[in-house]
């Protein structure tokens, strides 16, 4: 316990991942699901930066990939919020179960 | 009790607890001691305080430089793996310290040896951090208090009034303390329909990021709590977190006006962070570092070496940054989230007491942070406008160091310049009307954003051209620098001149107003 290494960070990331998945499963609000996705992406980023720090062959690469993931996450959030707003315009709610029907 | 009859049940007088009573007593004591002195010698006290602070800072620098040199560096040099997190120096006993000093040579005089023993706790990083945090927290507290007081004074003068005059004596110097005591003692109301936990926690979301920003903000070459290589981005980031508090406050109030205020804040903040960031990239491109100390030290040497005057793009970027930063800390004319006339104070409509005060602390502290950032990035940081060569002529003696610290660089210069920019913010607030939300967004997306993009491109090309070996480019750069510097000088002297004129003719300017009969004017 007195030695902080790669494993500790990866376990934290795993818990973040599990929490993100759980959020995605148990939320019916579209934005809640989005929050779950952000958690999952963050767990991936923690993994990447941890590998960057602890594995010699991942130097720089991990951080670059993490940067790209952050950019992608921002883009994804912008689009997803746009979709949520459209959903709200069309269905007057952001409950994803309402959006499950195929009929327009 | 009261001689008025009121239709509701009057509240029983609240009996204050011991801490509150202590605070009140302390405040009264302070006022009792300071008031006669301030009333008698306002000018000498002010100037003396400034000089004392300067000398104190200089003495602090000397002492800590000595500590670093004698106590930290020598033992650490033989410790193979010293890292910031390493606790290797935590438990160093005086005996061991003495032994190490003996090993190091022990050429120090008796006074030096005494000093070493007196200062031995200071060697521990954790102790030093504690002291530094305390100082930082004090600074963080004192800045908003006096900026608020100053704002009220400036507002008064602009509106041909005198502002607070009573509390404490000389120009109401204790007004903000009194307000603070009042606000702390006021009832903390939480509306019934509000989202309680969020409502309570929201002010802390605004104030903690500002405090964190102070941690990475250098006030001098060595006066920084943590020197980060990405300090600029870090400060931008934490100031960006500040807005969450405002939004959460607006949302949790469960009040239409508050939600409107919060939405305006979110909209405005997210928009203006982009031009602000791009304007800040201009000095980064010019200097090639995100480290604020590197950026400030690259401008050492005098007025004409300041970044704003070295490069036309940086000059415009400075102005763009200043405008965008006004918007990002919701100062007038961009104070839409708290527009009193439309939204009845917007996001903090429902707040009262201490939590309300926290919002204002955060606002005035972040005003100072953005002003200091502008100073560090564009206006030479802690370097004075005097040419550095004059200082070099003084030599390196102890007195010369003090003199140089006073005149040529040091935190006092940064503070003076930052306070001046804060003053400009206040000045703008009391002279400009608030603009509409569509104008706010128009100004961002269609004016500032393209402008800052062009500035970044231009600055890049400028830097690129400066690396070429073309002879006349240096001539052109010099000419541009001189022109820009002269423009700045004209503004500075014009400002001082107008201020002096106004001060000299202050009675004539306001005509036959009550100012003539009020005390202290």
């Amino acid at each position, binding site marked *: 316990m007195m030695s902080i290494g790669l494993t500790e960070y990866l376990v934290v990331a795993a818990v973040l991942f599990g929490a993100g*998945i759980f959020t*995605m*499963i*148990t*939320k*019916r609000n579209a934005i809640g*699901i989005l929050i779950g996705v952000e958690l999952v992406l963050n767990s991936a980023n923690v993994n990447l930066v941890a590998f960057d720090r602890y*594995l*010699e*062959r991942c130097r720089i690469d991990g951080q670059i990939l993490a940067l790209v993931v952050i950019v992608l996450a921002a883009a994804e959030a912008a689009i997803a919020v746009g979709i949520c707003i459209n959903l709200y315009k069309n269905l007057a709610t952001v409950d*994803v*179960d309402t959006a*499950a*029907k*195929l009929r327009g | 009790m009261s001689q008025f009859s009121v239709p509701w049940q009057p509240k029983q007088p609240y009996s204050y607890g011991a801490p509150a009573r202590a605070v009140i007593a302390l405040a009264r004591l302070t006022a009792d001691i300071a008031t006669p002195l301030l009333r008698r010698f306002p000018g000498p006290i002010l100037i003396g305080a400034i000089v004392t602070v300067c000398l104190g800072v200089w003495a602090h620098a000397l002492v800590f430089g000595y500590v670093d040199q004698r106590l930290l560096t020598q033992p650490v040099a033989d410790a193979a793996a010293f890292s910031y997190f390493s606790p290797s120096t935590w438990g160093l006993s005086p005996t061991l310290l003495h032994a190490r000093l003996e090993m190091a040579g022990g050429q120090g005089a008796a006074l030096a040896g005494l000093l070493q023993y007196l200062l031995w706790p200071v060697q521990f990083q954790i102790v030093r951090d504690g002291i530094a945090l305390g100082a930082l927290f004090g600074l963080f507290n004192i800045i908003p208090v006096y900026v608020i007081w100053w704002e009220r004074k400036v507002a008064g003068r602009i509106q041909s009034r005198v502002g607070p005059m009573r509390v404490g004596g000389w120009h109401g110097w204790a007004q903000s303390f009194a307000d603070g005591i009042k606000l702390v003692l006021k009832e903390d109301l939480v509306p019934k329909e509000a989202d309680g936990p969020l409502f309570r926690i929201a002010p802390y979301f605004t104030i903690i990021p500002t405090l964190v920003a102070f941690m990475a903000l250098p006030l001098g070459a060595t006066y920084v709590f943590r020197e980060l290589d990405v300090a600029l981005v870090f400060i931008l980031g934490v100031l960006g977190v500040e807005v969450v508090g405002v939004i959460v406050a607006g949302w949790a109030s469960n009040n239409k006006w508050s939600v409107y205020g919060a939405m305006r804040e979110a909209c405005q903040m997210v928009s203006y962070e982009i031009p602000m960031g791009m304007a800040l990239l201009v000095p980064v491109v010019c200097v090639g570092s995100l480290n604020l100390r590197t950026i400030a030290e690259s401008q050492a040497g005098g007025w004409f070496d300041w970044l704003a005057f070295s490069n036309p793009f940086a000059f415009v970027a400075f102005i763009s940054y200043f405008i965008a930063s006004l918007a990002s800390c919701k100062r007038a004319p961009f104070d839409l989230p708290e527009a009193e006339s439309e939204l009845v104070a917007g996001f903090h409509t429902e707040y009262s007491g201490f939590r309300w005060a926290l919002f204002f602390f955060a606002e005035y502290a972040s005003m100072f942070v953005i002003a200091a950032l502008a100073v560090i990035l564009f206006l030479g940081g802690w370097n004075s406008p005097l040419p550095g060569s004059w200082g070099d002529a003084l030599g390196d003696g102890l007195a010369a160091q003090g003199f140089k610290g006073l005149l040529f660089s040091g935190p006092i210069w940064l503070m003076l310049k930052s306070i001046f920019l804060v003053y400009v913010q206040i000045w703008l607030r009391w002279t400009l009307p608030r603009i509409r939300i569509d104008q706010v967004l128009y100004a961002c997306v269609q004016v500032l954003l*393209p402008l800052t993009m062009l500035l970044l491109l231009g600055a890049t090309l400028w830097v690129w*051209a400066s690396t*070429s*070996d*073309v002879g006349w480019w240096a001539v052109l750069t010099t000419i541009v620098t001189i022109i820009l510097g002269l423009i700045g000088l004209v503004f500075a002297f014009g400002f001082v001149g107008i201020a002096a004129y106004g001060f000299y003719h202050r009675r004539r300017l306001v005509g036959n107003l009550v100012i003539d009969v009020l005390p202290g004017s």
Partner: protein
Amino acid sequence: MTSHTYEILLALGVLSPFVSFWILVFFGPRLGKPTAGWVGVALGMGVPLVLATVVLIGWRGEVASGNAAELTANAFRYEWAMLGTVPATVGVKLDSLTVGMFFMVTFIAFWIFVFSVGYMAGHSDEVGGKSKYHRFFAYLSLFGFSMLGLVVSSSLLFLFIFWELVGLCSYLLIGFYFDKGFASAAAIKAFITNRVGDFGFLIGLMLVYFQLGTLDLDVAAQRFAEQYAAGTGIFASHFTLFGWSLATIMGIGLFCGAMGKSAQFPLHVWLPDAMAGPTPVSALIHAATMVAAGVYLVARVFRLMTPEALMFIALIGCLTLTLMALIAIVQVDIKKCLAYSTLSQLGYMIFGMGCGAWIAALFHLITHAFFKAMLFLGSGQVIEGCHHEQDMRKMGGLRKKMPYTCWTFFIGVLAIAGTGIPAIGIGLGGYFSKDEILAVAYTRSYEWGKDDFHKHVPGEGGGHGAVEPADGGQAMLASYQDHGQAHGDDHAPAGGAQGIFENTPALPKWMFWLAIITAYVTPFYMMRCWWMTFMGKPRDKHVYEHAHESRLMFIPLVVLAVGTFVSSYFLFRPLFADAAPAATDAAMVMAIDGTADTEAVHHAHSFLIGGVGFAFAVGFAIAFLIYRNGLDLAERIRRVLAPLHTLLVHKYYFDEVYDLVWVKGCILVAKIARLIDTYVVDFLFDLAAFVTERLAAFSGLILDNQGVDGMVNGVAKTTMDVSDVARSGQTGRIRNYVLFSTAMATVVMLVLFWWAMQAGNFMTATSAPPVG
């Protein structure tokens, strides 16, 4: 000044119109009607013109002091990206060709911009109630940016990028009045025709990329020569097509681009239609930018051309110059007449390039740019003045109403006709440039292969000093150099060219004669155009009364008229003659200087003085005789030569043929396909259906009820069961899907983990070295 200084100046000159473009795009509507135009003039071309002047003066000094070659060699190349193993470099190609072209483009375009301000002042610029005024100048600025970028590019890749930008700008500008059908059709036609040519260019570019392994012009030329010496790569004998080596294909491919942009013979159809754009645009396209780009391209890639490719170029140029000149005779639209004359003159330039008259062709490009810009602006003045009347038959006698336009136009006519007094050295424009092309062609046709011919070749033996600036007094310069300057003296076959050009054939004589004949046609149609417009009696009262001149518009005319005089007299020719040595690394350049005194020059001179020395007088005289008294005589001649006239009026039916072959051909193929679909495919379908139906009806009673039904129902029920199981997961709710996929992932992870544990080598780290 160092070479970096020149590069920075040129790069700033390229970027300035780009900045102007963005300013006009963003702030154009706010700048308002005249201001936006002046911003375009000042920033779009004024700044580049100043820079170009500075560079030109400086560069002349460098050439005079002999520093030019060193500066060219020291040019900076920035490695922008690696395309595989081929670096894509950015840089300024710093030589006399660039400097001269840069100055020409900026000078002409500047005055066209100035003219545009006046021109657009009187024109409607609104579409749907919105002003497009700023957009016009934004497009012009972008056009300037593209063309200047094209000129300074050191790499074929960037040349191609700017090339395409030029095409785009021409599309935008030709279709400026896009709400009018004919303008947008013309724009599309120009764009598509250019795409055809660019396809060839792209093929050539790919060959350069794959075979020469570089995109830098200098390196490409060097490798070209190396590959020739080694007989490998593009010169390998197994790579041939129609008997052409791959190098020839590459050269022709690159030339295809020039064919599209410079509107050479099969792809010339877009240029007359491009008159649909505003007149300044026509001037810009015809004089300074678009069509010059093609000639410039050929000049740039001249070192990558084989003799076969050059012969192909000469053939195309010859056909263009002849056929288009003939069409110009019968045009009645003033702008179209000028357009066809442009085509013909471009034919001369390309023909000159094909003959090896590299210097003369570029010289002709410059002189032509000046007087053609002036002619077009003059025609714009006329059209503007005559209330948008373009038919010359309705004009006449305008000299009184617009004297400046009339006489500047006349100077242009003199220049394009090659007017001059032989043997004295007084002449205008084409008199020097076009006749030099003809002289080179004459040499290539008649003197080629004669034993004594090469006696006149100074520095024979392949030395690098074979070609010197023409004003240095060299008589005839015909240099044949191969790759090996270093060992140039090792092979000096007497009386024959060396290296790649030892098999260069003589120019077919009919090509030369066609060019000579066209030299007579040119003065005729130009004089006809001028006379019909300005002289004689007014033929349309309404037009005549409306005619007037605009001050802003005739200042450029006067400036360009002066420029025509100046440019004719060997101002630019030495510059290109200086650029020529760089072009002869692997190619052949011939130049003929009138002041020299050798036998071959005498031959050429004596022939040309007799042959075309007074062609302008003949042409003018014929035109004068026919059109002296109005159009009656012309009408009679037309009736006599009706079939020929019809052929020419219909432009040899090119549009019709293209319509017939390509458009109608496509429709025909589609129709045939439809017929096949209807009668063959559908028939087969119907037949199959019929047979199936009968078979099913026959077998259904026996097989269907028991076996097939049973099987089908069984399968259906299985499917139903499976889908019932699968459907329970298909809730349409995203969170259920996440749940399932997470569960599955977990299970898979567990299984893999289990197997790995079984295998006994659980996920050991791969990068660390094994212990022990």
